[in-house]
């Protein structure tokens, strides 16, 4: 080989056919053509597909959850708040855990092993929740176990700091953090917030290196500040609870209103429930009786009839009416007073709560005027308060009233109201004859009212109500040390299956304090008290007294009457029903 020079190579001497070199050239050309076609195909025809595929490998869309707004009381104490939690879920066919591992998982999740096994045995399902609303600490421990086929998903858990004290007002959310009851349901849109998402490019290590675009910016839910004062609310709830338990009543409700702003300072119901622990709830516990239940108000309605008669000039506070002999027949029906009182002045009719006196005055009024009075204080219309299921109550059109009905409506039978409506209606006596809109949210602006009766008449009625809540009235137990109070009891037979039940009552009390310059209206209702009396003055007035005494102190209201021990007569006046 060494001896042969290249130019002397014998191969060169061989004369090759010319087609062979052309053939090779053709093959090379074909090769280039193939490359060109391929390039054309990749660059032009499938570029979209390839670019999406490429992007899929490094671009990610990140979900950005929005936190549900908090609910706070007027002092900024958190009443309801969402904190992140995790749902533990599994793909049953992927789970391959030993008996021991399953046991410790069950312990961690606080679920019986048998239940866990049952969930994982359903092999036809691709997805099964093992447990929802697990706290992040427990979820971390589950993660550390490193089981195949067990996954986690972010969600929120809502906590209610005050428990049963204001359960019906705030309501609750379901496991998806969507409002189901109360404020949570009514203000779902504001509270919920909107989850967002952003598109990012991630590097090999999973770090975000570039923001491509923000598809939707997340908006957290709005925080709501309620008008409720936690301290007054607790006072109201605990005193109501004590009364409902002492009188073995079926239910109870209370509402406290700020006279100047129309804010609801407290709203409590019994029976109640703990919104953090809702495994066995009954409908009775869920009901917000203050707003969604109606009752026949009984005597608490009398002041409105009297106010109308005073305004029309039919009577003056000194006009006397003969209520003897404690019975009065209208058509075929007879109405009664609990005790025969004889001749009473209009002031005394309210003080002793005489049905006959009120009925006799009412019969001198036009049905249309009475209807107008009741309507203008908000009866028969649902209050605009932004709460689901707030009821309107029943107030029949005046054209259908018969005289006996007009007489009974004057003292609160034959029409139905909610406790909130009654409390609101009483703002006309607590203020200067004007009625104000109520609100569940904190506000600092004084409410502007609509005049219903002249200020002078409101003042006259206020004086009568002060007597009714005094030692000689039907509600001496409503008195408060250091403060003058005014208010009216109501005791009404309940309607059961279309007829008045002889032994089922609703005892109520609506009043305000201090009487000299009212600051709060408190309405209390005790449903079916069975022990220790049933008159509003016995069951509801003591709750009013306790709540007013605490609430006025909380609000820093100066005492307006001498601080002396109260005179509570041994046997107070019985109230007419």
């Amino acid at each position, binding site marked *: 080989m060494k001896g042969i020079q290249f130019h002397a190579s014998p191969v060169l001497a061989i004369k090759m056919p010319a087609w062979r070199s052309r053939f090779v050239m053709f093959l090379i050309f074909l090769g280039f053509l193939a490359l060109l076609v391929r390039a054309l195909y990749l660059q032009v025809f499938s570029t979209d597909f390839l670019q999406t595929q490429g992007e899929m490998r490094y671009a990610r869309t990140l979900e950005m959850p929005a*936190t549900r707004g908090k609910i706070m009381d007027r002092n900024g104490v*958190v009443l309801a*708040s969402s904190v992140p939690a995790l749902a533990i879920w599994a793909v049953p066919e992927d789970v391959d855990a030993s008996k021991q591992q399953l046991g410790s998982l069950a312990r961690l999740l606080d679920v019986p092993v048998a239940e866990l096994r049952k969930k994982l045995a359903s092999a036809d399902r691709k997805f099964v929740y093992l447990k929802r609303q697990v706290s992040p600490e427990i979820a971390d421990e589950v993660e550390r176990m490193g089981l195949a086929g067990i996954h986690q998903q972010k969600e929120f858990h809502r906590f209610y700091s005050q428990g049963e004290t204001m359960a019906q007002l705030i309501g609750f959310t379901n496991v998806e953090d969507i409002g189901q009851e109360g404020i949570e349901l009514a203000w779902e849109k504001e509270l919920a917030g909107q989850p967002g998402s952003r598109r990012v490019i991630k590097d090999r290590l999973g770090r975000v*290196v570039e923001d491509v675009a923000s598809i939707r910016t997340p908006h957290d839910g709005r925080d709501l500040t309620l008008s409720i004062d*936690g301290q007054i609310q*607790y006072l109201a709830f605990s005193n109501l609870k004590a009364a409902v338990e002492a009188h073995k009543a079926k239910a109870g409700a209370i509402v406290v209103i700020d006279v100047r702003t129309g804010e609801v300072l407290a709203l409590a119901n019994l029976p109640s429930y703990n919104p953090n622990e809702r495994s066995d709830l009954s409908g009775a516990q869920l009901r917000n009786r203050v707003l969604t239940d109606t009752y026949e108000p009984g005597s608490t309605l009398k002041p409105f009839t009297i106010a109308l008669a005073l305004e029309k000039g039919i009577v003056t506070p000194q006009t006397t009416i003969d209520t003897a002999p404690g019975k009065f027949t209208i058509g075929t029906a007879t109405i009664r007073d609990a005790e025969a009182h004889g001749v009473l002045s209009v002031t005394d009719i309210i003080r002793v709560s005489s049905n006959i006196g009120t009925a006799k005055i009412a019969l001198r009024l036009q049905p249309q005027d009475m209807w107008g009075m009741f309507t203008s204080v908000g009866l028969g219309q649902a209050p605009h308060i932004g709460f689901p299921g707030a009821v309107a109550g029943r107030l029949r059109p005046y054209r259908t009233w018969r005289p006996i009905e007009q007489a009974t409506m004057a003292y609160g039978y034959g029409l139905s109201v909610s406790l909130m409506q009654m409390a609101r209606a009483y703002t006309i006596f607590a203020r200067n004859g004007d009625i104000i809109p109520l609100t569940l949210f904190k506000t600092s602006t004084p409410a502007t009212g609509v005049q219903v009766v002249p200020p002078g008449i409101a003042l006259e009625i206020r004086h009568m109500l002060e007597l009714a809540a005094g030692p000689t009235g039907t509600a001496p137990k409503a008195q408060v*040390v250091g403060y003058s109070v005014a208010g009216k009891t109501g005791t009404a037979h309940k309607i059961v299956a279309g007829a008045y039940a002889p032994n089922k009552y609703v005892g109520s009390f609506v009043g305000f304090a201090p009487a000299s310059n009212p600051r709060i209206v408190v309405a209390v209702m005790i449903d079916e008290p069975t022990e220790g009396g049933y008159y509003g003055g016995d069951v509801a007035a003591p709750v009013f007294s306790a709540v007013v005494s605490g609430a006025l102190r909380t609000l820093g209201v100066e005492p307006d009457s001498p601080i002396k021990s109260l005179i509570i007569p041994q046997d107070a006046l019985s109230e007419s029903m």
Partner: protein
Amino acid sequence: MTRLNALLLAVLMACALSLVSSRYQARRLLGALDTAQGTARKLDVDWSQLQLDQASLSKHSLIDAAARKDLGMQPATPARTEYIILSGKTSEPQPAPEAPSELQ
């Protein structure tokens, strides 16, 4: 001509390197921003949790029970309260006839 070319080449190289460096900076800062935002979120959650804990632990029913049972306290009555009126003088509460004995 060649000197101009060399100059342009040098400028080009400088630009290219600064581009690389600023891209790197941008990514690093974005990473830092992301971490900071994550921390902010976590602190937010912690804050909510603490607020909630505070509200749960200062629940009025707990305070009430502790004050009544553990500390043996009683609600203040107007009889035992001194009221200060803004005009400058204090209102003397009248002596309460039934003030609890342990206070006398």
